[in-house]
């Protein structure tokens, strides 16, 4: 029995197995953001269709689900029905869509065909997306009633993931 080999081997096995087991079950879509725990960057953007301006600071007091998306993004199509259905079921939660790098008429067509239940805002020069550090679409931020970001999710949301993250905003 070679004790050196055994000890070195056991240490390597222990470290590898511990790290990989710890990594299992974590969802790499739940992304850390330096903004978590910080006030959500304010914005006032025009809504598609109505042309009304929606100001984030005016939405304080309600949890906000802020979804960045675009019509050129496949998973956004997939995610859209989930968001609309949840927005209808959760009247106490304010859903806000922000469209990134897109044309207004394309968005209008998209919403006309697929329905909507919440305001969709036009981020014309991408400044809001930059302020939030959006890395790709779809990406969703969960903001608590005090206006603080509590979670960030990259990729299309399912209802379970949406509710799990929303719970953080209601805590």
């Amino acid at each position, binding site marked *: 029995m070679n004790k050196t080999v*055994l000890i070195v081997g056991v240490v*390597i*096995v222990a470290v*590898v197995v511990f*790290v*990989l087991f*710890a990594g299992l079950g974590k969802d790499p879509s739940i992304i850390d953001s330096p903004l978590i725990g910080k006030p959500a960057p304010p914005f006032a953007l025009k809504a598609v269709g109505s042309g009304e301006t929606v100001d984030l600071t005016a939405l304080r007091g309600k949890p906000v689900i802020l979804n960045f998306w675009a019509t050129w993004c*496949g998973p956004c199509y997939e995610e859209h029905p989930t968001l609309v259905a949840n927005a209808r079921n959760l009247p106490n939660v304010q859903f806000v869509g922000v469209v990134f790098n897109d044309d207004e008429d394309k968005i209008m067509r998209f919403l006309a065909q697929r329905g909507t239940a919440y305001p969709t805002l036009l981020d014309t020069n991408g400044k809001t997306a930059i302020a939030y550090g959006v890395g790709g679409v779809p990406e969703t931020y969960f903001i608590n009633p005090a206006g603080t970001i509590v979670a960030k999710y990259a990729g299309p949301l399912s209802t379970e993931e949406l509710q799990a993250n929303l719970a953080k905003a209601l805590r």
Partner: protein
Amino acid sequence: MTPILGRFLILASVLVSTTGAFIAYAAGAKRSPEGLRWSQRFAYAFAGLMVIATGVMEYALITHDFSVQYVAHVGSTQVPMWVTIVSLWSSLEGSILFWGFILGIYIAATTWVNRNDHQEYMPFAIGTWLSCGAFFSFLIAGPANPFLTVANPPLDGPGPNALLQNHLLMIIHPPMLYLGYVGMTIPFGFAIAALLRGRLGQSFLRPLRASLLLPWVFLTIAIMLGGWWAYEVLGWGGYWAWDPVENASLLPWLTATAALHSAIVMERRGVLKGWTVTLIQASFLLTILGTFMTRSGVFNSVHSFTQSAIGPTILVFLAAVLVFSVALLALRIDSLEAEGQLDSAVSREGMFLVNNLFFVVLTFTVLIGTCFPLIVEAVKGKQMSVGRPYFDAMVVPIGTALLFLLGVGPALPWGKASRKEMQRALLPPFITGVVVLAIGYALGVRNGWTLLTLLFGGYAAHVTFAQMWLPLRQRMKRGDSFGPALIDTQLRRGRRRFGGYVVHAGAVIVFVAIAVSSTMRTQQEVTLKRGQSTTFAGYTVTFTGTEERAEPHRQSTIAHFNITKGGGPPGGGGNIITTMDPRMNQYATMREPIGTPAVYSTITRDYYISIMNLQGDEAGVLIINLPMVGWIWFAVLMMGVGGLIALIPSRRRTYVVVPESAPDIDSEVVA
């Protein structure tokens, strides 16, 4: 019908591989020739079942049998035939079945080649292979079953992930990678057999080395094809991003390369047996780790399969193999003890040791960089990512040192080198190195690491060519004519040696090409209206317009550019050298449109155009000038060919045991 047949075949393969493994281990323990014959039959049977099961899946894919769950997942009547065929490895379940298919072929082929040889080791080796086969059959039968049925089969499926349909390399890159990955099971089985037997005889080195070299060749080519694919489709002009899965393919390659070198020392001097066996075990374990990385959903990567239940299963397997390997190694490493000893650090074998050290350090560097985010998250609960700067800062110096060794090692004699020998061996190539450095400097290279790479590259190239032609020169001195001496020394008797130096020559070119292409690249972002041109890096690019193309699975917008040489008048009046047509593809299932860049390759450089955005008459493009980048693909291919040359078995099987008392044996004796 098809799904039932498939499931039956897989269940049979679970049974056959498990039984076969037990029989084989028992045959090994009892040294029973009859048991060995039976375990061989089980090995063939396992392979047969895997091949037929894969054939059944291909049949289901080609006939669009959407009652099979896997076909319903990845099949589509809208995609071209080649996409349908390669869908086998485009998603999780199919790729595991494909793994089993390749494993079966490897096991059967190796069992057959060694059917009458190495009877001492073969039962344990077959037992180990079939145990791995049992695990993968179990995965296919259970957590990753592609043969599940769909109750209400859809009329059409979505087709495979769009990124995978974007390039023909999907046909060749994954199979090459699997041939490399899965192939590491074979040397692992041999290494386990040597440990279980408690000895590693000289005659067993040949199959051990060959079984390691073959997957090494495939893995080498697979890594290059992956880089080339990224370069051809991703549009940023790069070929390597230190993505976790790229790293996963590199890790076993590094340890396998180290093992190939330490095996040479083992063969020559009878030392480093335990070490070589450890490296072979590590190579196999790293392939399993790589499989875990791609399939567990733990790492965020372009290569990740969607999250699946098989992550924990693979992790349990990995942990079990780790524990088994470490325990066996601790128990038996001392019985593989050295027959010889090393005389001097400044000798070829001394350089082999340093080479091994660097390869292992490099492996740990990449491994830690890849897993560091997981470690931090496990310990501190924070997310972080390790980016390019870490890898570049760590890997560039170690890589440069390896290039240095690649030059110095083969120049030094075996045994102990005298001062005079050293001077004679080391000085002339240094002059070549300085010349190459000067040429680079004259051509405008200013980056310190690149200049150092040129110096070491010139040095190593000189040594490599000198070593390559050394036996030829000796033969001609003895009065042979050039032609027969060439064939005899390089391709007949000295094949292994010659092949090895072909690999080295390729590696030198790869080092230099990577250094030059990454530090000498220039790029320009520009927006062009239709008819406008821009001049960059010696070419004038004129935007001539766009074209829409609709295919069943995607919508493409193709931009056309004329390329003319030199400054030329605005509008590109000169002679058109070529046209370049980068495109944007919008797949129905993708998050974002995927661009396909256009590349114009010449011997000295690549000219690369990628679309950033297209709006009406305006195209925002990224133009990149990449010197020497094409050399990388060519040189890696050369490394693969060198490996194959070294792999072709000699006609006569003679083994020369190097006696301890003769350290200065001439290099041709063994060949």
